[in-house]
C-alpha cells in the first residue's frame, strides 16, 4: 500500500522540474539541429546525445520512485474522464521519456554510426539495417512531435488546475510550498 500524501515527494518534484527543463531543451535542440547547416549543427548534436542519455537515466530513476512512492490521489471533484486522461497522460510521459532516447540510440546503431557520448563510445544496441533505421528514424521524429504536443496539453491542464479549478492538483507538483489549501484527499 503506497502512503497517501497531498503532494509529490520533494525528490519527485525535483525530478519533475529538472526533467521538464531537460526535455523541453531536448525538443528545441532536436528541431533546431535538423534545420541548420551552420556549425551550430555539430554543437547541438553534441548536446542532444548526452542530454538524451541523461533523460533516459533520470526517467528510469523517476519510474522507480513513482512505483515505490506513488502519487497523491486526484481530487474527488475531478470528473472521471478527466482523471482517466490524467492517468493516461502520465503513462504516455513515461513511455516517451524512456522510449525516445532508446529509439534515438537504436536509430544511430541501425545506421552504423559510432555512438560517442561525451567521449565515451556506447555499444550499438541494434544491428546495421536500413529497414530498422527508417522505422526508428520515422518513429523518433513523429514521437518527438507528439511529445511536444503532450507537453503543451500537460502545461495547459496544469495551468487550468492552478488558475481555474484551484483544486490542489498543480500544488501537488509545484516546486514551492503553497499557501493554497489543497483538496487532494480523494477519499473524503
Amino acid at each position, binding site marked *: 500500500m503506497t502512503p497517501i500524501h497531498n503532494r509529490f515527494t520533494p525528490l519527485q518534484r525535483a525530478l519533475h522540474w529538472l526533467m521538464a527543463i531537460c526535455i523541453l531543451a531536448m525538443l528545441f535542440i532536436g528541431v533546431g539541429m535538423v534545420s541548420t547547416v551552420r556549425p551550430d549543427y555539430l554543437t547541438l548534436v553534441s548536446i542532444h546525445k548526452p542530454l538524451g542519455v541523461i533523460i533516459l537515466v533520470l526517467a528510469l530513476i523517476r519510474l522507480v520512485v513513482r512505483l515505490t512512492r506513488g502519487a497523491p490521489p486526484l481530487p474527488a471533484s475531478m470528473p472521471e474522464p478527466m482523471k482517466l486522461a490524467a492517468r493516461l497522460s502520465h503513462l504516455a510521459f513515461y513511455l516517451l521519456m524512456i522510449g525516445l532516447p532508446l529509439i534515438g540510440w537504436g536509430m544511430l546503431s541501425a545506421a552504423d554510426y559510432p555512438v560517442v557520448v561525451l567521449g565515451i563510445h556506447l555499444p550499438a544496441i541494434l544491428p546495421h539495417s536500413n529497414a530498422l533505421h527508417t522505422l526508428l528514424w520515422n518513429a523518433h521524429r513523429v514521437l518527438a512531435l507528439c511529445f511536444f504536443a503532450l507537453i503543451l496539453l500537460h502545461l495547459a491542464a496544469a*495551468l487550468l488546475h492552478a488558475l481555474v479549478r484551484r483544486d490542489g492538483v498543480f500544488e501537488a507538483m509545484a516546486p514551492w510550498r503553497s499557501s493554497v489549501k489543497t483538496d487532494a484527499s480523494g477519499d473524503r
Partner: protein
Amino acid sequence: MVDRPTSNTSTVRSLLLIAVVVLVLVAAFAFTAGWLSPARLTPTKIVNALAPPGGPALGFRRNHAKGVCFTGNFESNGAAVALSKAPVFASGSYPVTGRFNLATADPKAPDATVRVRGLSLRIVAADGSEWRTAMINAPFFAVATPQAFYGLLQASANTSDPDAMKNFAAAHPELGHFAAWAGSAPWTASYAQEQYNGLNSFIFTNAAGQDEAVRWSFVPAAKPEAVPADQLKARAADFLAADITQRVQAAPQQWTLVLTVANPGDPTADPTKAWPDDRRKVEAGTLVVSAIEPEDDGPCRDINFDPTVLPPGMHVSDDPFPAARSAAYAVSFDRRTAEDKDYPRHPAGGATQ
C-alpha cells in the same frame, strides 16, 4: 466542484492566459524548427538542390551517386602520433571500408562525363574509434562557404535567367579558379592514379594537448598518366570501376596519407584557399586497397561517410563545411536508406554491371 468559486471574467482571463502561454511555446518551437524562416539554409534545401531536373535517383546517394566499394587496410607508420593522439595514427594496421566515386547525382552517368572523382574512407581502430573522410581529386574547393555552394547549385539549375551562372561567377571569383583547374588539369583513366584531397581543415591534438590545423591528401603510388578527355569518352560508361577491379585483382593498390600542417595565419576556414607548397608535411602511413566490390551489395553502400565522424585527437576547425556536409549527408542517408526497394541488392555472384 470547484472549491473556490471564481467569477466568469477571471475564468476567461485565466483561459486567455493559458492560450497565450501555449501559443508562445508553439511559436518558439516553430521558429527554432525554421518553419517561420523560409530563408534559412537547411540541409534539406541543399539535398533537394542537388537533385537533377528529373528528380533524384532513388536509393542512391544524392551526390557522388556513382561509385564502387572496396576493403583494405590503413598501415600506419606512427609518424603522425606527434600531431594527433587518434588511435589510427599509432603504428599498426587498421581495417578500411571505402568507396571510389564520381561527383554526380546520376548513378548512370558515363565515367568520362564527370570531372571530379572522390575517395571515401572509414578507418576503424582497435578500440572501435572511427575516422570517416570523403575527399575529391580537386586541389581546392569551388566555393568558400556552404551558402555559396547552395547558391552555385541554384544558379546552375536556373533555366529562367541565362545570366544566373555568369552573375554567380562574377560574385564568387574563387569559382573561376576552380573552373581553370577543371579545364586544364589532366584526366587519368584510373581511380588508382588520382590524388584525393580532404580540402577541409581539421584540428589535430596530440597526447601533450598541442593543437595544429591540418589538411590531408591520399597520394597514389601509381604514376598518373594523362589521357585526353576525348579518348576517355570513347570508353565504356563504367570503365573506371572495371579498371580498378582489374588492377586490384592483379595487386593491391596503394596511397600515402600526407598530412599538411598549417603555418600560423594560414586560412583554415576557406577550402578554396590552398596552403603554400612549402608547408610541413608528414607521411602518416599507407592506404592499401585489397578488394573491390560492386556497390549494390557492397560494404560501403549503407555507410554515411560523414566527415565529422572523427576519433579523439581530431576535431573540426573554423571551416564551416564539415558541419554543413554532416547535416546534408544525414538527410541524403535518411532518404536513400528508406528507398532500399528502388536500389535492389544483388548478392555476391549475382552482381551484374
